[in-house]
């Protein structure tokens, strides 16, 4: 296949050699076309090698021994923290907390605030603000917190073209608001949200801001200082890292003030039978043996992405997204759910195809080797908002090619004929 050239594309031929899984062939000879990157990314050999060598050469528990391996493992684990801190431009490495995924990071903030003293405390006099386009991971923790504390849960609605409706921002974010938590890039609509307007309003009323950057960190440069938020959460497995590792970045003074959530080894200073004192952040929030190999793997992933360059990755995905949006809109009966142009959107594109149920679309595409996600993408309120049961979603990454978009388009044509 001759590759279509679009401005901004990366040299995918070289990049794809780093990802062994992309060579897979499924269903008797169909070349895999992996378009489910918003669910999880594939892993480069560089990350796999680091994971292996960690277990083969350095494995030990961290922060708990004076022997050589323990020191090596600790240096690798803490080294990964340095790498992640640099990757997100954190002012201090101590602001980077390792968790097991974005969900845990988001739940951690909800619980810090639920147990906090004034002025952070969320209780029946206060309000929590989210949006209608959140992943369930950024809805349910706040529902739990509201149910437990009596706080009122409020949210921004969506416009018909898949963007946040901020027209009533002054009514939604008020003096009572303690925290505003929202997604930077939607995993279902692809929308990139306007951070500045929300952060400014939140700061005016003294509310904290948490940003779910799960679909942002893998795809473009993430600068926590430029965002101006108080907390930023993301997950390692969507950005070439292993599963089992997530990140919560938080502003240092907040992490000092806010109470721990999980208790255990590693997070303490001294323990008696009556009470304990806690280690300083980030360790205060990392009870028990952490995901050591996974953190080291995430460090390797960050190295891999940085070596290519996040701006170049973003440009590549922008070009692919633009091309995919154009081609998808040529398919009869196909409606894009979310912004229909590549401006202010990420590389996840949801759509419906006439009356054909997404399950059927996904299954028939799979028979042709094409992996997409179908369903409500853990964002059921979005489906309810647009009156659809589910969507089919194709999502791209640094190794995606225009040729793969073409295969998807042909595959959709086949789906239409099959159920037509």
């Amino acid at each position: 296949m001759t590759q279509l050239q679009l401005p901004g594309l990366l040299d995918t031929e070289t990049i794809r050699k780093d990802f062994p899984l992309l060579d897979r062939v499924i269903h008797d000879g169909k070349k895999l076309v992996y378009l489910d990157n918003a669910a999880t990314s594939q892993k480069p050999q560089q990350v796999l090698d680091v994971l292996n060598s960690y277990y083969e050469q350095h494995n030990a528990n961290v922060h708990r021994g004076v022997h050589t391996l323990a020191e090596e493992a600790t240096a690798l684990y803490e080294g990964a923290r340095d790498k992640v801190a640099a990757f997100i431009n954190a002012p201090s490495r101590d602001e980077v907390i390792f968790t097991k995924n974005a969900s845990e990071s988001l739940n951690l903030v909800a619980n810090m605030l639920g147990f906090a003293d004034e002025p952070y405390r969320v209780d029946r006099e206060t309000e929590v603000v989210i949006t209608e386009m959140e992943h369930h991971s950024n809805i349910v923790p706040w529902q739990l917190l509201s149910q437990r504390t009596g706080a009122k849960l409020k949210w921004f609605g969506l416009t018909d073209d898949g963007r946040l409706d901020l027209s009533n921002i002054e009514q939604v974010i008020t003096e009572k608001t303690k925290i505003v938590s929202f997604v930077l890039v939607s995993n279902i609509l692809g929308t990139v949200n306007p951070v500045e307007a929300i952060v400014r309003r939140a700061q005016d009323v003294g509310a904290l801001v948490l940003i779910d950057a799960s679909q942002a960190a893998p795809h473009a440069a993430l600068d926590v200082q430029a965002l101006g938020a108080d907390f930023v959460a993301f997950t390692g497995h969507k950005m070439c890292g292993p599963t089992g590792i997530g990140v919560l970045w938080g502003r240092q003074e907040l992490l000092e003030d806010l109470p721990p959530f999980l208790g255990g080894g590693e997070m303490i200073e001294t323990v008696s039978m009556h009470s304990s004192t806690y280690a300083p952040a980030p360790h205060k929030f990392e009870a028990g043996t952490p995901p050591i190999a996974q953190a080291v793997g995430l460090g390797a992933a960050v190295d891999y992405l940085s070596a290519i360059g996040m701006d170049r990755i973003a440009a590549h995905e922008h070009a692919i997204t633009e091309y995919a949006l154009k081609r998808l809109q040529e398919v009869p009966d196909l409606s894009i759910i979310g912004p229909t142009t590549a401006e202010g959107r990420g590389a996840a594109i949801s759509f419906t195809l006439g009356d054909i149920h997404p399950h059927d679309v996904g299954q028939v595409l799979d028979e042709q080797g094409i992996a997409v996600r179908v369903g409500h993408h853990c964002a059921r309120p979005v489906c309810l908002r647009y009156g659809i049961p589910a969507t089919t979603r194709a999502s791209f990454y640094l190794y995606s090619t225009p040729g793969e978009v073409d295969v998807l388009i042909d595959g959709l044509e086949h789906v239409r004929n099959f159920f037509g």
Partner: protein
Amino acid sequence: MYQEVILDHYKHPHGRGLRDGDAEVHHVNPTCGDEITLRVRLDGSRIDDISYEGQGCSISQASASVLNELLVGKEYPEAQKIQETFLELMQSKGKVEPDDAMEEVLEDAVAFAGVSKYPARVKCALLSWMAWKDATAQALSEKETA
């Protein structure tokens, strides 16, 4: 998985639409958003009608159509046996090769044998059957108390 029979039932469903019933249930498949509202009308112990309305994939829609075609007019014990046989087939993970005896009981529903190999889709195929079981139990217990 997409047998001709399944596609036929999907494109031309039997007995679709809600009619009078003795009991109504609403079942959803939370992983994919398939939904069905289903009513059962009994005439003594005979299944007089199964009517339904819902949205979902071809597998869940076709399966509801087959359910209607197979069970309407049957005595409850026989219908129950068909339901149990279908359940057994769908839970077989593709390991049960339907024999003549099974085909006799299940008729068009044997076409779903292939679906049982796809764990994510088994729930789609079972949605209407579970709804029927639930609705019938309700209708029967209401008759008893009446």
